[in-house]
């Protein structure tokens, strides 16, 4: 590698680091983050309520770890990570164009795509922290009497890994949408609660066109039992395929987002 290439490579990575540091700081301060912290702690409240019911009503009994798994699938995987990724991912670009603050960034000695990468990394880390802190607290509350049972931690770490992968992947997709479309939130909502929720149950390989298919493939499959005749069911991919596909989706959309942001001219209208 020539000295010039090394220098420009170092400049590029330094730009990503600077952008990351700026937006991690900024992301922590904005009101939106505070609202989403509250939302992401809803499962913790639910876990507390369940625990209280169990404590006062001895007849009410549910396996703690199964309650935890259900919270992960229904609340985090099907709702929260989509909402967080949608609002944070699409805002990577749109909050600069709609807030007309883009000029402050594009007149600095920082590569445009490095700005996007740094901001994406900052916002993704923020929402990963938000989600995983909520998950750890929910787990701790629901398994309070089994905290020394280390076999349960395997489930916790697996679920945290799946949610983290989901956030990386969805945020990348919505970052791309934000650089590309003006009404990214509307499109994102249709995608999240329309496409992702419906197509994942389509038979055959159609369901592989959803991100949630690969995320669910990483979780244990529920027993089919008497519903095994249904056509609408998950036909999981292998763990390796699922991880590779998720990372590939994240990389591709992030790459396109960088390309679009670098090439597109954003007209900041009054």
């Amino acid at each position, binding site marked *: 590698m020539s000295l010039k290439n090394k220098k420009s490579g170092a400049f590029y990575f330094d730009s990503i680091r*600077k952008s990351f540091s700026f937006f991690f700081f900024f992301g922590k301060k904005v009101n939106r983050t505070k609202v989403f912290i509250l939302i992401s702690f809803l499962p913790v409240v639910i876990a507390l309520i369940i625990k209280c019911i169990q404590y006062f009503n001895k007849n009410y009994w549910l396996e703690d770890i199964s309650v935890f798994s259900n919270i992960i699938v229904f609340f985090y995987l099907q709702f929260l990570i989509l909402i967080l990724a949608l609002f944070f991912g699409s805002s990577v670009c749109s909050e600069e164009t709609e807030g007309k603050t883009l000029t402050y960034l594009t007149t600095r000695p920082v590569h445009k795509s490095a700005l996007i990468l740094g901001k994406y990394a900052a916002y993704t880390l923020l929402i990963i922290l938000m989600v995983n802190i909520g998950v750890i607290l929910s787990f701790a509350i629901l398994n309070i009497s089994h905290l020394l049972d280390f076999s349960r931690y395997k489930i916790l770490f697996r679920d945290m890994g799946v949610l983290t992968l989901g956030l990386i992947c969805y945020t990348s997709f919505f970052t791309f949408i934000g650089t590309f479309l003006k009404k990214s939130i509307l499109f994102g909502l249709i995608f999240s609660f329309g496409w992702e929720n419906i197509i994942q149950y389509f038979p055959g390989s159609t369901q592989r066109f959803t991100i949630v298919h690969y995320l669910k493939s990483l979780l244990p499959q529920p027993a089919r039992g008497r519903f095994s005749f249904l056509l609408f069911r998950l036909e999981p991919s292998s763990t390796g395929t699922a991880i590779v596909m998720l990372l590939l989706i994240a990389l591709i959309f992030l790459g396109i987002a960088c390309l679009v942001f670098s090439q597109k001219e954003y007209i900041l209208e009054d």
Partner: protein
Amino acid sequence: MIPVIEVKNLSKWYGNVLGLSDVTLQIEPGITGLLGPNGAGKSTFLKLITGQLKPKIGTVYIKGQKVKNNYPLFREIGYCPEQDSFYEELTGMEFLLKLLSLFPFTPSEAKDRAEQALEIVELTKEKDRVIKAYSRGMRQRIKFAQAIAHDPEILVLDEPLSGLDPLGRRRLISLIKEYRKKGKTIIVSSHILPEIEAMTKTIILIHQGKVFAQGDIHYIRDLIDTHPHIIAVKCDKPRLLAEKFIHEDYVLNVKFNPAEESLLVETNNRDEFFSLLPALFTENKIEVKEITSPDDNLQAVFDYLVGK
């Protein structure tokens, strides 16, 4: 010698809308006023020379280097945008520090520069308040501070005085003039001629995306002085005032607006007109409510000049 800023055959359009058309010019150190009515292409020109927009045709050079994708060159440029937009949740200090962190400064160097910039714009006391709590004047000043904090060689200010009260304007004009003394190149855009006049004599006149004239402000002043002006005087005795004016050679036309008790006077010599006015008021005991100039804006002047 290489000019600080040089643009060659610069053209830019947005779909069917023309932004800038075939502009070729050079800008040297000192203050250059970019003057033109709203929608003339001033902001487009400034965004092109700061690398925010890509020209459809033509090239921008800063110190002999092409601007396009030349990110290290942006260290030399300070840009103060027209729009009143900020990262509202940040404090003044954080806003400057975070933007300075995008330059190759050490944290302590960035802190020193931020404090220095805040001191220049007299915002040191308010540095820890969030920007959303700033007044309009403070917001304009913090915007100016972010443009000068990294001590750029070229300062590009898009309508920096808009929305400021007279005191705020004076303060900012003196700040801009201070910057000129350091030998920097400053480009200031405005659609108000007196604002530019207060800062510089070197101007670029821009209209409908084209550079209409470039050079000393006296040239344009002379052109403007021959432009017939309409002045509205709201007073209690408009007919008496009209009678006094009608004999003057420089008064071309007089009209009444009975509903508003006002008089519209068209003159081709504003200075003579205004020098006579106070004496007429006092001698005839006329009570004045308002004096305005309905066509005293650049659009009217440009329409006149273009027609000429």
